[in-house]
């Protein structure tokens, strides 16, 4: 529009100019009418011709300008469109820093990770309801730090039984504290205090990872959980699903073994799990000023190459710090502790099936046990346990999931004794604690247990649990449990 009006104005200006020229020419001609009229007419015609030619040229130039102008405006519009598109694309794509997880910023928090887990129990022995207990069994917080793409630090700190002080039952523990440095896709070196790669539970002991309110007895009493040692290891897994782990760690300490407990070391199933009574529970050191004059070695292999299947085995062996020698009877030779286990877990569809066998031994105990005759708690030369467990997800909706399970297990904290016929237990109804009037039966250190229960997952990270456990030997241990567990 603008262009047209402009050219219109120009055209009218040109017309005025021509008219003025014609007028002035005719005035000159009028001054000398007779002689020059023909010549003047000719001149005038010539001028008009010239002018009309100029007019045509101007017209053409204007047309050219008009076309150029249109082209320019089109170009401008196109540029605008491109700019808009680019802006939209930039909005859609986050800035490069947000794109890659590997990019770590300069802030401390970019390299830091935090996590935690914990569990609360309510446990009611059905034959002895006066021993019902509720416990914030553990509250654990983890801190990790990534130094670079191949080097990271992980640690976990645990408060057991809610309150830790000189007059309370609780404990504050460092559960893990190690550095990983990755060497290749399939090999990492780890140093510090770390979990031992034994069984299905020890390395994955968060309450969302196991069925039942409490951990199973085999992976508490035979494989001590949570079992950790100080040292270093090499571990990794390969593309075909073979996991491997070999390490050199601190070993066990038998020198503080309690041969002469005045009362049973446990009078409920919960006590038995908590009171560090089983052979490896009583002798592991957890890197607390650990005696490191003897080191132990272990190796573990696993296979997860078939989706849903996990089979594995592990073995640990090392000389222990020896039992305190009795007077006039030196203990010659070493006391070697060996533990091995094998496990399988298969999760076809909604099923979750697992089984585990674990066996431990301690050598050269004849002198030590024989010098503590009549002990209710001699050191076993062999101990073992096994279980089979099946779970099935009966209902799942959104994040909710209900999985009932049943488990059968057998454990023996002493299946063979050197230098001793075995524990000599007070018979009958006897005092079982320093509390006056607290009577009961001295429990035996082996049992068979059925567990029936269900895990109800509110989310994969929060689980409510209920179970009933039936003990065949220590029938007073039979109990009903409720639990709340979480992990993040």
């Amino acid at each position, binding site marked *: 529009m603008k262009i047209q009006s402009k050219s219109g104005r120009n055209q009218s200006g040109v017309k005025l100019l021509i008219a003025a020229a014609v007028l002035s020419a005719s005035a000159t001609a009028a001054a000398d009418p007779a002689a020059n009229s023909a010549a003047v007419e000719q001149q005038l015609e010539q001028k008009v011709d010239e002018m009309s030619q100029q007019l045509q040229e101007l017209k053409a130039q204007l047309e050219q300008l008009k076309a150029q102008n249109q082209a320019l405006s089109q170009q401008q519009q196109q540029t605008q469109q491109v700019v808009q598109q680019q802006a939209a694309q930039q909005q859609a794509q986050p800035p490069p820093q947000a794109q890659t*997880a*590997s990019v770590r910023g300069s802030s401390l928090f970019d390299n830091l990770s935090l996590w935690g887990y914990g569990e609360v129990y309510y446990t009611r022995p059905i034959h002895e309801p006066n021993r019902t207990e509720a416990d914030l069994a553990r509250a654990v917080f983890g801190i990790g730090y*990534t130094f670079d793409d191949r080097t990271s630090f992980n640690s976990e700190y645990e408060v057991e039984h809610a309150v830790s002080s000189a007059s309370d039952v609780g404990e504050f523990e460092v559960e893990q504290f190690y550095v990983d440095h990755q060497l290749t896709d399939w090999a990492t070196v780890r140093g510090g205090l770390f979990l031992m790669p034994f069984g*299905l539970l020890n390395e994955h002991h968060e309450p969302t990872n196991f069925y039942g309110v409490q951990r199973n007895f085999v992976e508490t009493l035979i494989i001590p959980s949570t079992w950790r040692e100080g040292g270093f290891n090499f571990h990794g897994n390969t593309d*075909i*699903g073979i996991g491997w782990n070999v390490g050199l760690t601190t070993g066990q300490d038998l020198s503080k073994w309690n041969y002469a407990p005045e009362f049973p070391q446990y009078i409920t199933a919960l006590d038995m799990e908590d009171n560090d009574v089983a052979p490896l529970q009583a002798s592991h050191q957890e890197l607390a000023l650990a005696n490191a004059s003897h080191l132990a070695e272990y190796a573990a292999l696993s296979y997860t190459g*078939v989706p849903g299947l996990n089979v594995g085995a592990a073995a640990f062996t090392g000389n222990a710090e020896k039992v305190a020698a009795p007077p006039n009877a030196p203990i010659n030779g070493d006391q070697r502790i060996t533990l091995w286990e094998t496990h399988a877990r298969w999760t076809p*569809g909604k099923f979750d099936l697992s089984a585990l066998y674990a066996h431990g031994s301690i050598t050269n105990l004849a002198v030590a046990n024989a010098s503590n005759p009549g002990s209710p708690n001699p050191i076993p030369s062999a101990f073992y346990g096994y279980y089979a467990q099946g779970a099935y997800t009966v209902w799942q909706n959104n994040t909710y999931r209900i999985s009932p399970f049943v488990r059968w297990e057998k454990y023996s904290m002493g299946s063979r004794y050197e230098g001793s016929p075995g524990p000599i237990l007070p018979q009958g109804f006897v005092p079982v604690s320093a509390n006056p009037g607290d009577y009961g039966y001295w429990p035996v250190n082996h049992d068979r247990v059925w567990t029936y229960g269900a895990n109800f997952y509110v989310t994969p990270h929060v689980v409510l649990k209920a179970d009933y456990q039936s003990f065949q030997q220590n029938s007073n241990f039979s109990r009903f449990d409720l639990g709340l567990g979480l992990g993040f």
Partner: protein
Amino acid sequence: MIPSSRLLFLPLAAIAVCAPAQATVYLSVDEAQKLMFGEQALMPLPVVLTPEQTAAIEQDAGTKVYPGSLRAWKAADGYFFVDAVIGKHDLITYAVALGADGKVRQLEILEYREAYGSEVRNPRWRAQFNGKQHGDSVRIGDGIQNISGATLSSEHITDGIRRLLATYAIAIAQPPAQR
């Protein structure tokens, strides 16, 4: 006392064998793209979700959508995606190739940083997703087997793939009307 441990030799042997290499980053985005689509040049495909689309995807997949997390490219014969999920407490980055028919062609783990659970790199586990498309059952225990010992990682990657397939169906395969 000097520990008489034969295993002392193992670490030394391992150090000798293992040449340092980039490790927690198993594949770069470029390497994954070449692996899945060869040398062809891919067109970046901006994934801008309307609030309605975000809600629809979250409803459909049952997982949360984090804006800007998913990156997408269009190939001549399909789509290339890079996304991330939290494993236990750290990010797992992975790449997914979809065919032009919207079916998963390949899953590759690009980065895994946590101390446990890197078994999700196992090819047979990842192959379970191949051929899955939106509407198929893509859940642990229902279409996909888990990995015992890498429970959370396998669960969260499965959730991520389900979210990706929903995003593809809702926002990419049926683009919104031109404004």
